[in-house]
């Protein structure tokens, strides 16, 4: 047997010596690595750029927000400071924001400008824009917009210790006005006779004018309340105890504008009406085995849906709401003043103890200011017709010295916006309208006004806190009172 010996040239290369082949692979590796590196580098830079641009946008947005807050601060000082145009903002020497130039550079190189656009006399639109340019590929702009209004305007209550009859309208006949409600430039007044609903244009309080003269509902009207563009009127009609009108055009209001009615069984008289949000509380004169307090859900369209009722066994003449409590004035001889919990309209319930006033004269009016209430009663020879109560005790408090002699039935009461002046119409010609200091527990009278044969006895009152005026309705007339200029004992 001969060994097959291969020559060196024929033997395979077991040591892996393959000249030129490693170089190829190295080159291939470099190319692949370069591709990866390039792709990775690009994506890396892209990601980094995204991060930086995101950060720029956040800082730019905060700079824009700062511009808006600066303008808001300027508005708080005075809405009239907001003049139209492009402005910059800075902190002034008084450490408050002020306008300066047409733009401002904030730290970090963010250029901010605010643009003020006056849409109406009381509404401004503010646009705050911030720009930045750091690199050609790293620039941007962000914008924030908001609306500001003149709600911060401060009104004032003048000196109601001195009053002047500013305007008067006597429609004719003896309407015997009952209640007043105001919306915008119009006052709505219910009455027992005549047209029963009267509308007065009070845009010029020195010269109020009766409008909607043809409106007549043919039945005595008592309670009144307004929500949105809907007027709710309480009557003694046997089928339409509550009538709802669309008052979007008050000057031409007619019965054709009636949009809804509520029929309450047993044909009561709806005396008191008050809103809590969209819940209407109505109180009626009819007792026996029948509820006297009703809760309704209303809509902006005027739809009325009954939620619940409460039978308290007495006529209820007036209601005033504070929080979740409805304070009612009744003719119960030992419970003229009561509190109804109205947290749930479907679950009305009496709360606390009733208050028994001296004598048996009916409770006819109630008004709430803070944690105190004033109640007006029918005239009595041995009583004071106005009483002050503490509402925090849930129903009343001992009378102490909180009485005021009305010398006539007090059918309505109202307060000014500070809760200091109480306005009291009385069923008397002498001192028919009175103003008392409610902050003084002794209830001192500040001033009074004598009616005469022309105007008759006072029956209803309404304080217009937008105009700082008081409207008083008498047997025959609608009156406008204004205070004296300057500050009074309540300022």
């Amino acid at each position, binding site marked *: 047997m001969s060994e097959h010996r291969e020559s060196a040239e024929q033997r395979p290369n077991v040591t892996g010596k393959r000249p030129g082949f490693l170089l190829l692979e190295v080159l291939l590796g470099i190319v692949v690595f370069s591709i990866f590196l390039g792709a990775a580098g690009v994506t890396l830079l892209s990601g980094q750029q995204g991060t930086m641009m995101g950060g720029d946008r956040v800082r730019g947005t905060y700079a824009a927000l700062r511009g808006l807050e600066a303008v808001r601060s300027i508005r708080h000082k005075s809405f009239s400071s907001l003049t139209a145009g492009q402005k910059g903002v800075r902190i002034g020497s008084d450490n408050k924001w002020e306008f300066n130039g047409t733009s401002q550079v904030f730290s970090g190189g963010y250029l901010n400008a605010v643009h003020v656009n006056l849409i109406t006399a009381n509404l401004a639109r503010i646009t705050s824009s911030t720009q930045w340019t750091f690199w050609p590929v790293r620039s941007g702009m962000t914008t924030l*917009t908001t609306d500001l209004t003149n709600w911060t305007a401060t009104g004032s209550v003048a000196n109601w210790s001195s009053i002047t009859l500013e305007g008067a309208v006597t429609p004719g006949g003896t309407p015997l006005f009952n209640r007043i409600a105001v919306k915008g430039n119009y006052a709505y007044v219910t009455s027992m006779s005549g047209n029963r609903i009267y509308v007065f244009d009070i845009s010029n309080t020195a010269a109020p004018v009766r409008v909607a003269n043809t409106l007549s509902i043919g039945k005595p009207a008592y309670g009144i309340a307004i929500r949105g563009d809907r007027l709710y009127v309480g009557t003694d009609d046997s089928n339409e105890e509550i009538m709802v009108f669309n008052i979007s055009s008050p000057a031409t209001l007619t019965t054709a504008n009636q949009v809804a009615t509520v029929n309450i069984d047993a044909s009561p008289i709806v005396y008191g009406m008050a809103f809590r949000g*969209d819940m209407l509380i109505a109180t009626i004169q009819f007792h026996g085995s029948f509820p006297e307090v009703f809760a309704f859900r209303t809509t902006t369209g005027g739809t009325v849906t009954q939620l619940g009722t409460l039978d308290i066994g007495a006529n209820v003449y007036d209601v005033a709401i504070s929080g979740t409590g409805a304070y009612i004035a009744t003719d119960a001889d030992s419970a003229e003043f009561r509190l109804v919990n109205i947290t749930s309209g479907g679950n009305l319930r009496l709360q606390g103890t009733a208050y028994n006033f001296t004598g048996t004269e009916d409770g006819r009016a109630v008004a709430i200011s803070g944690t105190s209430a004033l109640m007006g009663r029918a005239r009595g020879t041995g009583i004071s017709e106005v009483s002050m109560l503490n509402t925090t005790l849930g129903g009343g408090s001992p009378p102490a010295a909180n009485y005021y002699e009305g010398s006539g039935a007090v059918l309505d009461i109202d307060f000014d916006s500070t809760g200091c002046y109480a306005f009291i119409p009385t069923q008397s010609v002498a001192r028919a309208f009175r103003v008392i200091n409610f902050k003084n527990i002794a209830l001192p009278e500040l001033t009074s006004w004598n009616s005469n044969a022309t105007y008759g006895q006072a029956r209803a009152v309404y304080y217009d806190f937008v105009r700082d005026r008081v409207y008083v309705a008498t047997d025959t007339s609608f009156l406008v009172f204004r205070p004296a200029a300057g500050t009074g004992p309540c300022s």
Partner: protein
Amino acid sequence: MSTLRSRPGYVFLLTVLFVGIIASAAAVTLTMLGLAMEQTSQSIHQSMQAYENVRSCIERALLDLRTDPTAAGDYSITLPYGTCSVEMYGGAGNYNRTICASGTYKNIVRMVEVQVRRLYPSVRIQIWRDVTSFSLCN
């Protein structure tokens, strides 16, 4: 016979591939971080604009109540960047009024409820809070 030992470049190539994959993964991660930062900045801007939208509605509501305390509320407004809406005003008269409003910009919704202690002679706000659902309004 092992071909691996006879092909040292193969190892290098594999190494390059692995390194490249790792580098790519890191780059992609950083890219996604950058995208996330972009999206976050967008969301911050949108959220701020939505909040300014709800403040716009509250501004208008306060003026509305100052002008007409019998106003009912319940309206929506189209703004330059988004919309806002106001629920029916709570309370009645001069005291204890409530305003609930929401502002929207793109997909962001912000809600604020306000309790006003009084309107006149000057507005006094008792509560102003950012909420996810209204508690002051029904």
